[in-house]
């Protein structure tokens, strides 16, 4: 009982201190907010923006998927066309032959190589652009 009373009293004292200390909370001057925002905007205009980098990365990722979709889309279309023509001329047995699978593999290889070259080209272009931007900043 005594302990409970003591705790209750402590809580009341705490509440009173809280109330009186809260009344002394300082108010930041009105111009401080503008000073801070101005400095932040100034500094963010000077430094390379993370956001731009982020957007660029997202855009690049989009390009990768787009390239992948278009190049391999054409590849599958070519293979499908080949398969249909082969079926029309040679019949279903041709699908089990080495010639058919070698041709399909060759087409796959050529398109993969094409995709790889286009990625490499994109990478080199973006690298030279970044170096140019860096030189400008310096």
């Amino acid at each position, binding site marked *: 009982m005594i302990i409970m009373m003591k705790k209750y009293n402590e809580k009341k004292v705490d509440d*009173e*201190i809280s109330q009186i200390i809260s009344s002394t909370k*300082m108010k930041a001057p009105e111009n*401080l907010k503008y000073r801070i925002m101005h400095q*932040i905007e100034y500094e963010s205009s000077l430094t390379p923006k993370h*956001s731009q980098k982020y957007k660029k990365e997202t855009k690049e990722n989009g390009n990768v998927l787009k390239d992948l979709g278009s190049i391999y889309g054409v590849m599958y279309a070519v293979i499908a066309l080949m398969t249909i023509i082969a079926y029309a001329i040679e019949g279903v047995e041709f699908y089990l032959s080495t010639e058919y699978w070698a041709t399909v593999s060759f087409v796959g290889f050529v398109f993969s190589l094409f995709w790889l070259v286009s990625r490499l080209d994109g990478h080199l272009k973006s690298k030279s652009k970044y170096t140019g931007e860096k030189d400008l900043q310096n």
Partner: protein
Amino acid sequence: MNENQCVQQVLSGNTSAFKHFVESYQDMAITIAFRICGNMQDAEDVVQDSFVKAYKNLRSFRAESKFSTWLYRIVYNTAVTFTKSQMWANTQVAPLENAIQVGTNSLEKQFEETEREEIVADIMAKMPKGDALLLTLYYMEDNSIKEIAKITGLNESNVKVKLFRARKLFGDLAISNYGLQITGS
């Protein structure tokens, strides 16, 4: 819009979204900085510097703790570095000059609000910086012991002990300087 969404907005390039944080926390930030620096001019510089640091390092903010805790930690560190002060050294309390022994009164009942604010500000100014800061963090914003420990870099048991002493000192100074007793009534 909650704080995490706001953080994401700032990170995605919307600088003006940071205004929300400035508006929400500048008052408490200036109070913390003032407790450490001791004057308004330095406190303003510290707060400005702290918000810019927070903006620059926003990527390192993990939503594990509250944004306010993270920000106040930056304000605390910036102010301590700025003033080159030792926050937790054993400092002596300022001598109690002009102590008015007028018996015991309740701080709330006896004084007008503005007068009460002046008295509390005076008592806080007489306390060691660290103690005044702990009382501010604990009572003004209802920060938990854990959050205060994160802000100040002390461990939790240390915060508890120091907070107990600070509270006692606050009460003692209120009595000896103004004859005021904090009774909770």
